[in-house]
Structure formats: structure tokens, C-alpha cells
């Protein structure tokens, strides 16, 4: 037996797992329309690379990753693109998201699938490939996996098979039925990071999965570690602590302590990508709760949830649906939202399964929340400060170490929506931080402008002085020339001035250099360049008038 290093706190909600683990995985039927969100992952959204009306093949890339922390999205089936528009998305904000709608043709024609020999290419090539194939974490956070693979000589690779949230069984079923392939996937991650040890953490309420994983791991050197059932042992930091005794430093990454963590389903999708050349276009989703037939389905990404839930035949007294688990999941207000890569479970709710919470009362500082907090926080203090918008203090009490697991809310006898307060405070602080950065920038720019104006004034003064000196010198010269030359000289001077003005105007026209570009950050410079480009187009039409005006000015000067 491996020594476990229990983390503090945790809770034991009723697990409701057996309902959906009775039947094997089934494949969900192909829907008529698939809605693929371009923002299914953390980081920046993908950019559409198809046009409306275009025919696409199953597995064809329809959205390309933009930037480092981003991931591609693919057509889950063959068909025609009918819209690229804002579409409701499963997000707490309830705001719509840019999505690609695909009318399926039912032919399921694949693109050409090319398995790769991941041992043959270098890790960075592999990572690029994973990004192109849309591999993101399927454990919940949907963080692009290629970013997380960026490590070598890793001490321990932790595979997260804890599945600690109640109701959800998709990882369980995956391991029961496809253990060998999961192990194949783990090997890819192990290879990419040169991980010395692999620990697979599974909660002890999944004996069948444990058995099949143990069988699949025979001879691979990987170790299946059975951990006690305790929410949230599936959270990366807590699982790493549990298995290795190491704590991921606050604000840091697991790789700093030589550990990385992937979900089993993520590993499985790596296997599909590398060994079968299939991008991430489907995932396992548990349909459970207040339904006639709870079961896991292999579901295409983009399947509208409203259609999907019908498979499980929700009971008549169903009050709503939750995406994800009851502890961290998202109550759905709109059933037209599609399945995304992070969708691991849909729970139908009823009054009996989810009794309405008693009315919220003030915090009585009973510290049950603190006893339950797996991040060793003092949730009652965080709440106190978040409630009174004392964000500075909230940060002092380490608000940003909160993993939003909900254990505190779960045990709170006052039934305060604690996690909501933390989310509110966190997003408020982040916004303030952004504002502060903007203010700093503005201050810098303002100070620079004052400096520039001062400088320009000085330069102008210097120019004037020089001009005056020149004029004086010239006057001296002309006066030498004699009295009647005066008129001529004046005329000549005027001519010269006009000439000079024309010269100046010409010079200006030749190089329209924007002023005020010293000290610009590169992004701003890029922006200006873009503007210049636009301007160049506008120039042609404007040229004429501009020249005329310039000449006018030159003459009147």
C-alpha cells in the first residue's frame, strides 16, 4: 500500500453513482444540428476557418487555435455550415458565444485520419499536434492540454480518475470499458514529459474501474492508487497532495513541484488523437438524476442538450437540469446550449433529489466551513470581507487560493451561498486589477504627454530663436546691399517663404508620419500600422484635396 497524505477538510455528499453505472456506454444518435462553440476551453477563443455554406467532413478543423493558450475545434460530423453567430453557451454568465452551426448530412464522412508515431516526433511537435487536434482537459477545467504537457523530466504524472463529484460516472465507465486505451493515452503524456512515475488515483467507490485499470496497467510500471471517497479528492491540488504529499505552491503550477495531472478522459482523447488520428469531437456524458434510464453516452460535441436529455427519458416532475455535478455544476437555464468538451454530466433535478435549500441566515461563525475547506482557508472570513466588499482583506485572507469546490456552502448551517460571494469578489478584484493597470498606463501616457509638450515648447522656442537670428543676419545682409534693394528683398523673402512652405508640404506628403508615436507599446504600434494600412486605402481618394489644401496652407503661411 502506498502512503496517502490526506488533505484537510472535504465532505461526503450522497454519491448517487450507481444509478448511471448499471448500463454500459451507449452511443448517442446523430442530431440534425450541431452547435460547436469556438470558446470551449480556457484562454482565447478559436477563430473560425470555414465559411457559411461550406461542406465539411467529420473531424475537419473548423476553428483554429489563436495564440498559445487556445485550442482548435473540429466538425463533429460531416455536413454543411449554416451559421457562424452568437449562440447560447453553457456558461455562468448566460451570455451567448460565437459558435458554428453545422447541419449534419448523416453520412459521417471522415477526413483522412493519420495515426502518428508519437515516439518519433519531438515533444514540441506532439504538443502542436495536440493543439491542432483540439485536446483540452476533460476533467472540468477544459484547459488546453498541450500547454500542460510543456515539461520534461517530470517526477510524477498523476492521472485523475477520482471522479469525486456525486452522480458523475463517465470516467468510471470509461475505465471499466476502455482501460487499455486509457493506459495507451497515459503513455503518450508520460512520454511527452519524461515522467518517471505514473500514479492513477481512483476513489474506492469504483471497484470495477479499479480492477480493470489494475489489469490494464500490468507491466507498464504505472500504479493504481485507491483513495478514500471524499469530495474533492479529484481536484488537482488535493489529489496531488493526497498521492505525493506535495502541495502545489499558491499561484504556481504543479510542474514546479515536478508533478502534472491529467484526467483519464483527457488521456483517452490523447490516445485517440495520436493512435487513431481522430480529433476531439465526442466525449462521454453521464445522463442521470430524475430520469427513467440513467446511462453514459458517447456524445458528439455540439449536440444540443435539450435533445440529448430525451435519451434518458426524464420523469414528469423534473424541475431542471444541471451540467456537471451538483457541487460545481452549472444549472442550465436554456436547453438549446450544446454539449461542450467540458460537459461530463447532465443531471435532471427534482424536488426530491434537490430539495430547495432552507432560507439563508447570517453567518454565525460556527467554522464548519473552515473545517470542511480543502484549501485550509477560513471561508467565514472570506465571506465576511466579500460581503462587505473589503477586497483588500479578502485577498489578505487568500481568496485566490479558493478552488470554488463548494464544500463550505455544503456544510454551512446558515446556507449562505458562500461560493457565489467568492466568485463575485474574485471577478471584482480581477476587474479592478485590470482597471489599475489601465490607470497606470494612462498615468504614464499622461506624464509622457506633458513631457512631450514641454519638449516641443522648448524645441519651438529654439526654432524661433534660430529663425530670428537667421532673419537678423539676413536683414543685416540686405541692409548692406543698399536702400532700393529693399522691395526686391521683401519679394524674394516672400517667394522663399512660399517655396519653403511648399517644400514642407511636400515632405509631409511624402512621409505622413504620425506624431506622438515615441514610446508606444508594441500592440499599440501594431494597431497604428493597421490604421495606416486603412489610411493608405483612403488616401487615393483623399490625395487630391489634401494636396490642394496643403498648397493653400503653404501659400497663406
Amino acid at each position, binding site marked *: 500500500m502506498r502512503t496517502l497524505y490526506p488533505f484537510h477538510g472535504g465532505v461526503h455528499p450522497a454519491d448517487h453513482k450507481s444509478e448511471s453505472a448499471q448500463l454500459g456506454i451507449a452511443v448517442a444518435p446523430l442530431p440534425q444540428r450541431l452547435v460547436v462553440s469556438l470558446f470551449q476551453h480556457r484562454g482565447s477563443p478559436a477563430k473560425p476557418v470555414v465559411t457559411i455554406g461550406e461542406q465539411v467532413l467529420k473531424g475537419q478543423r473548423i476553428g483554429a487555435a489563436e495564440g498559445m493558450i487556445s485550442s482548435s475545434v473540429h466538425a463533429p460530423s460531416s455536413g454543411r455550415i449554416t451559421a457562424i453567430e452568437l449562440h447560447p453557451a453553457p456558461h455562468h454568465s448566460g451570455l451567448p458565444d460565437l459558435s458554428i452551426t453545422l447541419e449534419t448530412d448523416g453520412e459521417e464522412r471522415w477526413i483522412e485520419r493519420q495515426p502518428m508515431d508519437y515516439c518519433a516526433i519531438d515533444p514540441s511537435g506532439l504538443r502542436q499536434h495536440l493543439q491542432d487536434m483540439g485536446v483540452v482537459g476533460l476533467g472540468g477545467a477544459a484547459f488546453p492540454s498541450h500547454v500542460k504537457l510543456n515539461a520534461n523530466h517530470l517526477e510524477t504524472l498523476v492521472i485523475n480518475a477520482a471522479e469525486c463529484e456525486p452522480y458523475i460516472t463517465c470516467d468510471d465507465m470509461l475505465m471499466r470499458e476502455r482501460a487499455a486505451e486509457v493506459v495507451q493515452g497515459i503513455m503518450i503524456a508520460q512520454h511527452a514529459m519524461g515522467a518517471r512515475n505514473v500514479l492513477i488515483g481512483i476513489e474506492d467507490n469504483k471497484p470495477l474501474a479499479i480492477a480493470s485499470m489494475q489489469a490494464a496497467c500490468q507491466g507498464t510500471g504505472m500504479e493504481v492508487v485507491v483513495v478514500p471517497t471524499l469530495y474533492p479528492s479529484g481536484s488537482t491540488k488535493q489529489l496531488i497532495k493526497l498521492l505525493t504529499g506535495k502541495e502545489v505552491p499558491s499561484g504556481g503550477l504543479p510542474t514546479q513541484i515536478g508533478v502534472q495531472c491529467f484526467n483519464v478522459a483527457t488521456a483517452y482523447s490523447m490516445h485517440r488523437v495520436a493512435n487513431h488520428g481522430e480529433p476531439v469531437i465526442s466525449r462521454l456524458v453521464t445522463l442521470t438524476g430524475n430520469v427513467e434510464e440513467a446511462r453514459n453516452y458517447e456524445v458528439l460535441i455540439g449536440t444540443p442538450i435539450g435533445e440529448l436529455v430525451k435519451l434518458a427519458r426524464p420523469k414528469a416532475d423534473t424541475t431542471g437540469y444541471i451540467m456537471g455535478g451538483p457541487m460545481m455544476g452549472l444549472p442550465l437555464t436554456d436547453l438549446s446550449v450544446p454539449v461542450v468538451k467540458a460537459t461530463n454530466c447532465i443531471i435532471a433535478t427534482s424536488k426530491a433529489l434537490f430539495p430547495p435549500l432552507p432560507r439563508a441566515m*447570517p453567518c454565525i461563525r460556527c467554522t464548519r466551513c473552515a473545517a470542511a475547506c480543502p484549501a485550509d482557508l477560513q471561508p467565514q472570513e472570506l465571506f*465576511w470581507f466579500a*460581503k*462587505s466588499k*473589503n477586497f483588500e*482583506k479578502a485577498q489578505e485572507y487568500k481568496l485566490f487560493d479558493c478552488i470554488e469546490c463548494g464544500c463550505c456552502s455544503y456544510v454551512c448551517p446558515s446556507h449562505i451561498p458562500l461560493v457565489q460571494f467568492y466568485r463575485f469578489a474574485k471577478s471584482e478584484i480581477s476587474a479592478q486589477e485590470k482597471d489599475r493597470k489601465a490607470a497606470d498606463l494612462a498615468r504614464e501616457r499622461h506624464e509622457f504627454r506633458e513631457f512631450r509638450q514641454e519638449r516641443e515648447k522648448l524645441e519651438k522656442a529654439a526654432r524661433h530663436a534660430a529663425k530670428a537670428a537667421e532673419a537678423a543676419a539676413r536683414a543685416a545682409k540686405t541692409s548692406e546691399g543698399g536702400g532700393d534693394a529693399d522691395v526686391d528683398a521683401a519679394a524674394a523673402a516672400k517667394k522663399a517663404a512660399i517655396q519653403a512652405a511648399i517644400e514642407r508640404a511636400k515632405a509631409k506628403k511624402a512621409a505622413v508620419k504620425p506624431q506622438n508615436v515615441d514610446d508606444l507599446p508594441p500592440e499599440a504600434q501594431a494597431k497604428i500600422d493597421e490604421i495606416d494600412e486603412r489610411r493608405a486605402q483612403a488616401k487615393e481618394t483623399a490625395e487630391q484635396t489634401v494636396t490642394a489644401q496643403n498648397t493653400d496652407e503653404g501659400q497663406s503661411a
Partner: protein
Amino acid sequence: MENYFLILIGTVFVNNIVLAKLLGLCPFMGVSKKLEAAIGMGMATAFVLTLASGASYLINQYLLGPDLIYLRTLSFIIVIASIVQFTEMFIHKTSPVLYQVLGIYLPLITTNCAVLGIPLLNVQENHNFIESLFFGFGGAVGFALVLITFAAMRERLEGADVPLPFKGSAIAMVTAGLMSIASMGFSGLVK
């Protein structure tokens, strides 16, 4: 020795200058909104109060004597003002770090009536030089102690759902009152 110990216990707990003697209330109310500031103020006051207590003893004993008692208030306040000034200059010169911590509170001390009250009480109670020092120091420690705990409470109170008219200084006053009730438990400790 026991006598000095009793003076300390007495001034810190039993006859706390803020809660029982009702001295030094302006800084007690004014500099207790932030814990950090309260700690700075407490330390600065402790230093000045001890000095002032000793210095005014000497003044009273050797400069004024029994004949010039009518100059007592005048000379005490001037001496205190100068002590504050000099302390400020001194730590400004010698320890910029300390100045950072205490500097801004020093000028405020002149308006702390405990600084004058303690020397006057010294005279009233016929303390000798050492007793005066202890009395001043004990008073200052008592002041710092309640100031700091009070500041911590006020920070907590910021989040409390206090009825609107009581928000701010009103509830702070009530809190000081309840602290005062608590400190009355120590009455009789020093006979």
C-alpha cells in the same frame, strides 16, 4: 518592587487610562480604524508617555517646587510638546525605518490628553521618580493594548450589518463601552 508591579497591573488593567480614567480618547477613536496604524500609534505613545511622565516629574520637583505650582500646566505642556518634537527629529535622523513606522503618529500625540493627564495624576498621587516612570509606562501600555484590540474589533465591525445610524463612530463608542464593562472585571485586583 511589588509596588511597581502593582502600579503596572493597576494602570494597564484595573485603572486603564482609556477605559476607566477616560483619558486619551481622541486618538483612541481617531487612530483605531486600522490595525496597523493603531500598532504604530500605540508604540509611539508608549515611548512619549514614559518620557513625558519622567520629565514632568523632574520639572515639577526641581524647577517649580512648591512656589510655582501655578506654572505647572504651562510648563508641562511645553515640555511635552518639545519632547514630541525632539523625538520626531531624533528618530527621523537616527532611524528612518522607525520614522516610517511611528513618525506620522508623533505629532498627533500632543493632542492626546493622557500625555498631560498622566503627569498631573503623578503629582496628585505623589509618585516618586521611578513610580512616575512606571505609571507613565503602564498607562501607555494600557493605552496601546486597548487601542490595538479596539482597532482589530473595528476592522471586524466594518463588515457587520450595523443599523445605519450606528455605523461608524456610534457603534465604536458602544464597543468602547462594552470593553469598559469587561475591564471593570479587574476592579479590586489592586487594592
